[in-house]
């Protein structure tokens, strides 16, 4: 669990960590948009430089980001192989015993790969520099204007924050259940298929049953403490925007405009 880099929060103290989550989310969305503007490798070159500097500003290690991209590598290899067989346009890059590999195949794959890598880097910077709960608050505030369109912004945020609160508890409980069933002879390594299914059921069913009970108890406790869904509530945690956040958003806007200019061919 501790080795998963993708999506994980890194408790450091950097400028990026201190930025307002709402600004960061909007900046991320802006940057993702910029990536999809067709500017060729020049544009990507600029973006890459910007993003790498942001990485340094967040005190994240490049190593960490590379690990975040590991899950994708396999897929990109696969893509490369397919493209080599499918794309036969452009000039010939290399000829292996009569089998020709064309430039377009390579460049296409590179193009897509870089785009994906930039996307992953941007989203990883967001999740690595923002505590899950702050992210939730940011999402709640950003969705708030959509309440008039019946988007239950607050309820969504509440569900996410309660889920986050219970993740460690559920992990502990899973551990307990696994040990209890191991004491009854459950061994996930051995056994025929049917036995393995039963073994997995012996872990999942108790977890579900206790989670339902938990949910019921929790709902009772929430109601007893005066929670009324859809009713007006004040909020303890407040987010504060500073001039730095505004500057960041302006920079992102400039980047988008630059990319558009490049694409149009100015």
């Amino acid at each position, binding site marked *: 669990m*501790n080795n998963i880099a993708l999506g994980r929060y890194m408790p450091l103290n950097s400028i990026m960590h201190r930025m307002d989550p709402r600004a960061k989310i909007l900046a991320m969305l802006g940057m993702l948009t910029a990536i999809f503007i067709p500017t060729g490798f020049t544009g990507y070159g600029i973006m890459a430089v910007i993003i790498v500097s942001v990485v340094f500003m967040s005190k994240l290690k490049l190593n960490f980001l590379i690990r975040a991209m590991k899950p994708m590598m396999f897929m990109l290899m696969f893509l490369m192989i397919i493209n080599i067989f499918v794309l036969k346009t452009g000039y010939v890059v290399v000829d292996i015993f009569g089998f020709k590999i064309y430039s377009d195949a390579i460049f296409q794959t590179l193009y897509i790969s870089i785009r994906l890598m930039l996307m992953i880097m941007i989203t990883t910077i967001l999740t690595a520099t923002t505590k899950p709960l702050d992210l939730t608050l940011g999402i709640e505030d950003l969705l708030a204007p959509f309440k008039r369109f019946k988007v239950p912004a607050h309820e969504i945020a509440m569900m996410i924050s309660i889920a986050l609160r219970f993740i460690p508890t559920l992990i502990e*409980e899973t551990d*307990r*259940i696994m*040990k*209890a*069933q*191991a*004491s*009854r*002879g*459950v*061994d996930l390594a051995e056994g025929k298929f049917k*036995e393995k299914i*039963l073994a997995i*059921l*012996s872990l999942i*069913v*108790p977890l579900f*049953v*206790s989670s339902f009970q938990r949910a019921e108890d929790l709902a009772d406790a929430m109601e007893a403490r005066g929670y009324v869904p859809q009713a007006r509530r004040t909020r303890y945690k407040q987010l504060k925007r500073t001039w730095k956040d505004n500057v960041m958003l302006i920079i992102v806007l400039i980047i988008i405009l630059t990319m558009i200019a490049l694409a149009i061919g100015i």
Partner: protein
Amino acid sequence: MPIAFRQVSYEYSPGTPFAYGALNGVDVEITEGKVTAIIGATGSGKSTLIQHLNALLLPSQGEVEVLDRTIVAGVKPKQLKSLRQNVGLVFQFPEYQLFEETILKDIIFGPINFGVEPQEAELRSLHALNVVGLDETYAEKSPLDLSGGQKRRVAIAGILAIDPYVLVLDEPTAGLDPQGSKSMMNLFMTMNRKYAKTVLIVTHDMEHVLTYCDEVVVVDKGKVILKSDVKSFFKDESLLDQLNICPPKVVDMRRQLQKAGMNLSDDIFDIETLAMAIAKEVNGHE
């Protein structure tokens, strides 16, 4: 067949910033064929200790001898299943481990996992159901239809059906009402007296220790600091004070009376005997 810990240490999450030494050199031999209470403050290492008995945890240092196997730190043991079968471990709030469609199917789960033939497993399971105080009509019911106390008994039956030599229970009476507690502890006494099983009970309840247990093992800060028979343990006033343990009420009262000048034997452990002794003191001065 002995159960012994020799210089056993255990560390959670070794090599990380979260490393935590739960056991620090445990040395103890559990007497076979008795009901032994394992007591100690929360966090003293009791849970970690008992999980070594069926190899759910392997020692970081030292060795654990259980029945015919010895588990040595650093040596990965082969074939843990026999150990799991011979030492039945019941965790706190075991009702949460039920998962099958019917009660009988749930109880059978354990024996089948250990290779017991289905017919034999079913016989054992029905027997176990009876032993915990539920009759055959429960066999086809869903575990979810039962009360908390009944579910717990089904969970315990699930371990009894495995027919282990040793029964280890982690706070088996937590959350039960007085009657439920009593029948639970009586069940364990029966497993010991009638079915000759070695029983280990982790508990905080000194009244239970006095009433149902033969020996007591005290765990403190990852070490076993004492093993004694129950009566000697409760007779040692300074020891109990040192360990910050409240003695059973009958012992407490006997002491208070003794301190106030009454001549009472130290060997008094139940209400009737105490009452008789008091009466002698009070009435005998006529």
